[in-house]
C-alpha cells in the first residue's frame, strides 16, 4: 500500500517535471519565434521610418545623423530609448568623438507594437545583441510620457 503510494507520487513527479520541462522548452521556443517575428516586422518599420537618416547599415551620416551601432543609447535603458522614438531628439550627442547636428522628429504616430518591433530590430541588428522591447513596455512609457 505504502509502496504503491510512493510509486504513484514518483510517477506523478516524473510526469509533472517532464511536463514542466516541456512547457519551459515550449516557452523558450515560443519566445525565440516571437523575437524573430518582431525583428522581421521591425525591419519594415525601420525601412519606412528610419532608414533614410540612420541608413541601411545603421551607421548614420557623419556629423548629422548618429549611428545605431553598439551605442549606450541603443543598448542601454529601454525607457530612454522608447522616449527618443516617441518625442524625437534634439540634444548634443557625442559618439566616438563625433557630434551629430540633425534633430530627430517625434514618431509618436507609430503604434506601441511598431515601436516595440523597430527597437527590437535595432537592438538585434548592426552587430547589436540586446533583449527585446515589448508593446507593453512602450505602452507604459507612453502613458507616463509628459511631452
Amino acid at each position: 500500500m505504502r509502496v504503491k503510494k510512493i510509486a504513484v507520487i514518483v510517477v506523478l513527479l516524473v510526469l509533472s517535471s517532464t511536463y514542466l520541462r516541456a512547457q519551459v522548452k515550449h516557452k523558450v521556443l515560443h519566445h525565440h519565434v516571437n523575437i524573430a517575428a518582431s525583428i522581421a516586422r521591425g525591419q519594415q518599420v525601420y525601412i519606412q521610418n528610419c532608414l533614410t537618416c540612420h541608413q541601411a547599415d545603421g551607421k548614420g551620416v557623419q556629423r548629422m545623423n548618429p549611428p545605431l551601432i553598439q551605442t549606450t543609447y541603443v543598448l542601454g535603458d529601454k525607457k530612454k530609448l522608447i522616449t527618443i522614438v516617441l518625442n524625437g531628439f534634439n540634444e548634443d550627442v557625442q559618439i566616438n568623438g563625433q557630434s551629430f547636428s540633425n534633430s530627430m522628429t517625434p514618431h509618436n504616430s507609430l503604434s506601441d507594437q511598431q515601436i516595440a518591433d523597430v527597437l527590437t530590430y535595432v537592438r538585434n541588428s548592426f552587430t547589436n545583441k540586446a533583449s527585446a522591447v515589448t508593446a507593453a513596455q512602450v505602452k507604459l512609457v507612453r502613458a507616463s510620457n509628459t511631452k
Partner: protein
Amino acid sequence: MKINSLLSLVLPLAVIPALILTTQPKNNDQPKKHIIAADNAGLTLPAGFGADMIADNLGGARHLAVTPQGDIYVKLSDTKDGKGILFLHQNGDKAEVANSFGDYGGTGITIKNGYLYASSNEAIYRYKLNDKNEVIDPASPETIVSGLTSHRTHNSKSIVLDNEGNIYTNVGAYTNICSEFDPKGTGCPILNIAGGIWVFKADKLNQKQSDGIRFATGLRNVVGLDWNQQDNQLFVMQHGRDELHNLFPNIYTVHQSAILPAECMYALKKDDNAGWPYLYYDWQTHKKMQGPEYGGDGKKEADSKYLNPVAAYPGHYAPDGLLFYTGNQFPAKYKNGAFIAFHGSWNRAPEPQAGYCVVFQPFKNGKPDGDWEVFADGFSGSKSLAQPGDAIHRPCGLAQGPDGSLYVSDDVKGAIYKITYKK
C-alpha cells in the same frame, strides 16, 4: 562537411574576377606611366588635368583658403588637439602643417584685405596678417560677430566678403521644412532669425546678429557661397529639403524623393526671397513647386513672386563649396565659370547615393551658360555608393591657388587635393 569543402573550392575562384575588376585602370586613354606614378590621387578628371593629394588625415577639413604665397589655411569642423585652424606650408608635392590655432570648430574661412576671417558655428573672427599673409597673433582674434543663431541642425556658417567692406554669412534654418514650428502652415516663424543670408560690417568688432541686415531670406541652408567679381554679386548654393516620400508617401515615390528637389544656385540681391519652406524647385521641369506642407500636391506650382534659381542640380547632392575660377592656368572655358563641391547625398536612401564630386558650371557674361559637367569624381572610392558611411573621402571646400591651381578639401579623413592643368 561536403558543402564546406565545396565552398572552400569555389570561394577563391569567385575572388579572381573581383581582383581583375578592381586592379584594372579606370581610364584606359591615360598614359600608363602616369597611372602607376600618381593615379591622380584616385580622381577621374578631364584630359590634361592631374591631381595630387598634398595632405591627408588632417581631420574634418571644411573650407580652405590659399594665400598668394601658396600657403593654405584649413578650417576644421571640430578641433583637433584643441585647434580648429591649420596653417599648411607647401613643400614640393606635399603640404605640411606648420602651425595650428583657434580653439573652435567650424566651416568658414577666407582671406581679404590683409585679414584672415574664420567662423565657428556661432561667431565670426578675424586675424591680422603680415606681408607674407601669416597670422601675426594666432592667440587673439578679433570678434566680428557673435551669438549667431545656432541650434544644431544646419548650424555651419560660411563666409565671404564683397569689395565694399561687408561680410556675408548664411544662417541656416534649424529644421528640415519648418513643420514643427509651423504646424498649421500659416507662415514659418523662424525666418526672422534663420533661413537666410545676413550681412555685417567686416571691420566692426563685437556685432550681434541683430546688428546685421538680413540680406536674403527663404534659403533653407547654404554652405557653398562665393562673390562673383564679374557681376559684383553674391552667389549661393542651397541645400534643398529632405523627406518628400517619408512625409508624403501618397504624393511622392521613393525614387522621386531621391532625385527631388533640386539643389539650387541663386544670384542674390538685397531682400530676395527664395521661398523656402513654401516651395521647392524641380530641376527636371524647371518649375517652382508648391511644397506639400503648404497645400502642394506634387503638381501645383508655387507663387511666381519668389526668386528663380540661376541653375539647378539633382536632389541631395549637397553643395558645400562654390568657387568662381578667375585663374589663367586652366583652359579658357573655365575662366569665370563656377566649380561646385558636392559633398554627396544621404537622403537618397534606400536608393544609391549620388554627388561626391566636383562639378563645373560654365558661365558667360556672369550667368550660367550651358550644361554642368562632372569635373572631378572618385572621391568616395566606389562607383556605386549604398550609404554615405562607405565614402572614403567627401569633397567640401574649394580654393584657388596663386598659380590658378584648384584645391579641394575632404572632411571625412581630411585630405587636400591640388588639381592642375598639365597642357
